C-alpha cells in the first residue's frame, strides 16, 4: 500500500554522541535515508602534529572515556611499528589483559544500560534500576570488576597512566593479580549465568542483511590486540596496507567521516569479530553463544548486542587465562621510566624517522592509528580511523534494506526499530567525529 512516512528522530537516545535519523518515504518509495551526525569535530589529528611521540597515547586516550585503553593500545602499536620496537612478552600479556577488561566494561554497560531498557519498556536505566535492581547491581558489579583490572594494570581508570611505548611504568604486584584472579573467577560463576538467562529470554528483532564483516584475525586467538585485517568478502589485508580496505570519505550530512571499503560499506564490531573468529572463543563463551542462539555467520545487525554478551564472557575467561600466564611465568620488574614531557630527555626508546600503523580491536570494532615521525621523534602526521566511522555507511544500508520491509507498521514502531538498529551498533559518535574541513551547503 503506497504510504508516506516522514521520520525525523532528533538526537537518538542512548547512543554515545549526537546523531539524527532521517527517513523520507513518498508513495511507498524510500526517498531518503540518513544517519546525520551533528556533533562538533574534535581535531585530534591536527592537535597531534608537532607533538613528541610519547604524548600521542596520552592525548589520544582522551578521544574516548569508554575506549581509552583501546586508543592507548592502538597508539602504542602504531608508534612501536614506526620505531621498530618489539615489546616484551610480559608487556604483551599485560596489554592484552587490560584490553580485555575494557571490552568487558564497555560491553556490560552497553547491553545492560543502553540496550536492556528497550526490552523492559523503560526509557533509560533509571526506571530499570527501580524495577529490576538486581540486574543493575549485577551490571555495576561487572563494570567495577573491569575497572579494577584497568586500575591495577594501567594505573588508572578510565585513562591509563602506566601504559607507555615499549612497556609499563609500573608492573602490578603479584598479590594484586591474585586478587583480580579470584574476583574474575567469582564473576564467571556468579554473574555470567544470570546474565545469560536474562538475555536468552529476550527476543531481538529479526532482520537479515549480509554485508562485509571486517575484523582482525589471528591463527591462535580471538584477535583483539594482534592479527591481520580480515574481510569476509575480500580476505586478508596487512595492517600497514589498511588504506586498501578502508577509504575515509566526507559526506555532507555528517561531521564524522564515512569509511568504506573499496567496493562497498562494511561492518566492524562484535558481530564481525564473532563471524570471523567464533571458533577461537573460550569454552564458556562458546556455550554462551549457543544458549543465546548466536551461530556464525549471523547476518542480523540487532544481534551485535548478543555478540557483545558472548564476548564479555570470553573477556572474563581470557583475563583469567592471561593473569594465570603472568603468574605462572613470574612477574619481572621491567618497569620503565615515564615518557611524557618531563621524561623527554631521559631514557627513551630509539628515536628514528618512521611511519607505522597500529590496528587493534576495540569494543565497537577495528581501530587504526597511523603516525609519521621525523628524525627528532616529532609527529609529522597522524590519522585515526574510528570504528563508528567505518560503520556509518553500513548502518544506512541496513536502514535502506529494513525500512521497505516494515512500512506496514505504525510510525512509532518503525522509529523504535530504527533507533534500536542504530543503538545495536553501539555507535560512539563523539569519538568518530574528527573531520577537518567541511563546507555545509
Amino acid at each position, binding site marked *: 500500500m503506497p504510504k508516506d512516512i516522514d521520520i525525523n528522530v532528533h538526537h537518538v537516545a542512548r547512543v554515545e554522541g549526537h546523531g539524527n535519523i532521517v527517513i523520507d518515504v513518498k508513495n511507498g518509495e524510500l526517498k531518503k535515508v540518513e544517519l546525520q551526525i551533528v556533533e562538533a569535530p574534535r581535531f585530534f589529528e591536527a592537535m597531534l602534529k608537532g607533538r613528541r611521540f610519547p604524548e600521542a597515547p596520552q592525548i589520544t586516550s582522551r578521544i574516548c572515556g569508554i575506549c581509552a585503553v583501546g586508543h592507548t593500545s592502538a597508539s602504542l602499536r602504531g608508534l612501536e611499528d614506526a620505531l621498530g620496537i618489539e615489546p616484551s612478552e610480559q608487556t604483551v600479556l599485560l596489554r592484552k589483559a587490560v584490553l580485555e577488561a575494557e571490552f568487558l566494561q564497555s560491553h556490560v554497560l552497553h547491553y545492560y544500560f543502553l540496550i536492556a531498557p528497550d526490552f523492559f519498556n523503560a526509557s533509560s536505566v*533509571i526506571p530499570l534500576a527501580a524495577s529490576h535492581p538486581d540486574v543493575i547491581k549485577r551490571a555495576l558489579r561487572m563494570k567495577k570488576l573491569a575497572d579494577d583490572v584497568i586500575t591495577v594494570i594501567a594505573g588508572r581508570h578510565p585513562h591509563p597512566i602506566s601504559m607507555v611505548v615499549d612497556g609499563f611504568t609500573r608492573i602490578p604486584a603479584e598479590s594484586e593479580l591474585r586478587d583480580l584472579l579470584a574476583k574474575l573467577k567469582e564473576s564467571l560463576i556468579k554473574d555470567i549465568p544470570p546474565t545469560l538467562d536474562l538475555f536468552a529470554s529476550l527476543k531481538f528483532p529479526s532482520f537479515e542483511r549480509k554485508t562485509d564483516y571486517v575484523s582482525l584475525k589471528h591463527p591462535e586467538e580471538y584477535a583483539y590486540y594482534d592479527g591481520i585485517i580480515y574481510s569476509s568478502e575480500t580476505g586478508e589485508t596487512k595492517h600497514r596496507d589498511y588504506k586498501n580496505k578502508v577509504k575515509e570519505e566526507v559526506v555532507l550530512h555528517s561531521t564524522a567521516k564515512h569509511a568504506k571499503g573499496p567496493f562497498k560499506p562494511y561492518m566492524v564490531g562484535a558481530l564481525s569479530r564473532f563471524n570471523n573468529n567464533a571458533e577461537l572463543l573460550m569454552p564458556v563463551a562458546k556455550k554462551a553463544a549457543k544458549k543465546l542462539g548466536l551461530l556464525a555467520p549471523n547476518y542480523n545487525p540487532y544481534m551485535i548486542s548478543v555478540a557483545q554478551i558472548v564476548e564479555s564472557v570470553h573477556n572474563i575467561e581470557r583475563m583469567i587465562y592471561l593473569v594465570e600466564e603472568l603468574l605462572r611465568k613470574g612477574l619481572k620488574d621491567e618497569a620503565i621510566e615515564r615518557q611524557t614531557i618531563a621524561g623527554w630527555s631521559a631514557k627513551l626508546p630509539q628515536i628514528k624517522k618512521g611511519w607505522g600503523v597500529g590496528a587493534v580491536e576495540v569494543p565497537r570494532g577495528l581501530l587504526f592509528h597511523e603516525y609519521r615521525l621525523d628524525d627528532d621523534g616529532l609527529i609529522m602526521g597522524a590519522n585515526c580511523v574510528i570504528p563508528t566511522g567505518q560503520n556509518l555507511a553500513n548502518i544506512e544500508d541496513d536502514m535502506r534494506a529494513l525500512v521497505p520491509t516494515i512500512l506496514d507498521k505504525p510510525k512509532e514502531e518503525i522509529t523504535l526499530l530504527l533507533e534500536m538498529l542504530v543503538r545495536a551498533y553501539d555507535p560512539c559518535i563523539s569519538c568518530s567525529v574528527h573531520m577537518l574541513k567541511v563546507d555545509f551547503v
Partner: protein
Amino acid sequence: MTRPLVLGLGNILFRDDGVGVRAVERLRQDGYEAEIINGATLGLSLFDIFKNNEKVIVVDAVNMGRDPGTIACFKAEELLSLPENRNFSLHEIGLLEVLKIGFALEENFSNVIIIGIQPGIIEQGEGLSPEVEDKLPEIIEVVKKEVNQDASYARNIKRDEPVRVPEA
C-alpha cells in the same frame, strides 16, 4: 570519623561548568589538607566514590535560576526532582543520573552533600566568568567549613525558595 572527601566536578572547557574543578584546584594549591579529587567529567565511576566514602562533599555547577555565583547546598535527595538527561548515554551520565540510579537501587547517598554554584556563562571556552571567579574564595570557605564538620554553616545558607528548574 574520617575526614570527608572533596570532589570537584565539571567540564573546564565549558566556562562556569568547570567551577567545581577550579575550586578544588585552588584548595590543592593552598595546600589544604583533605582528600581532594578532581572528578572533572567522571560519570558512572561516581557511584563507587559515593558508595565507598563515609562523607563526600561535591562541588559542582548547579543551575538554580539565580544570580551567577550564588552558592547553595543540597542533600543528594533534594536534587532528585530535577529531570535527567533525556539522551541518556554513558558519556552523558553525570552527577544527577548517578544519584538517581543510586536512589533506584536504594542507596540513598545520605553521605553526599552538594555545594552548588550558579553558573553565569556555559559555553565552549576556558576560564570562569568574572562573577563566578569572584566567588571562588567564598566557595572555598564554604567547602572548608563543611569539611570541618561545621555542617550547620553550609546547611544554613539561606535559600529563599526551593530549588527549581529554570524555563528553557
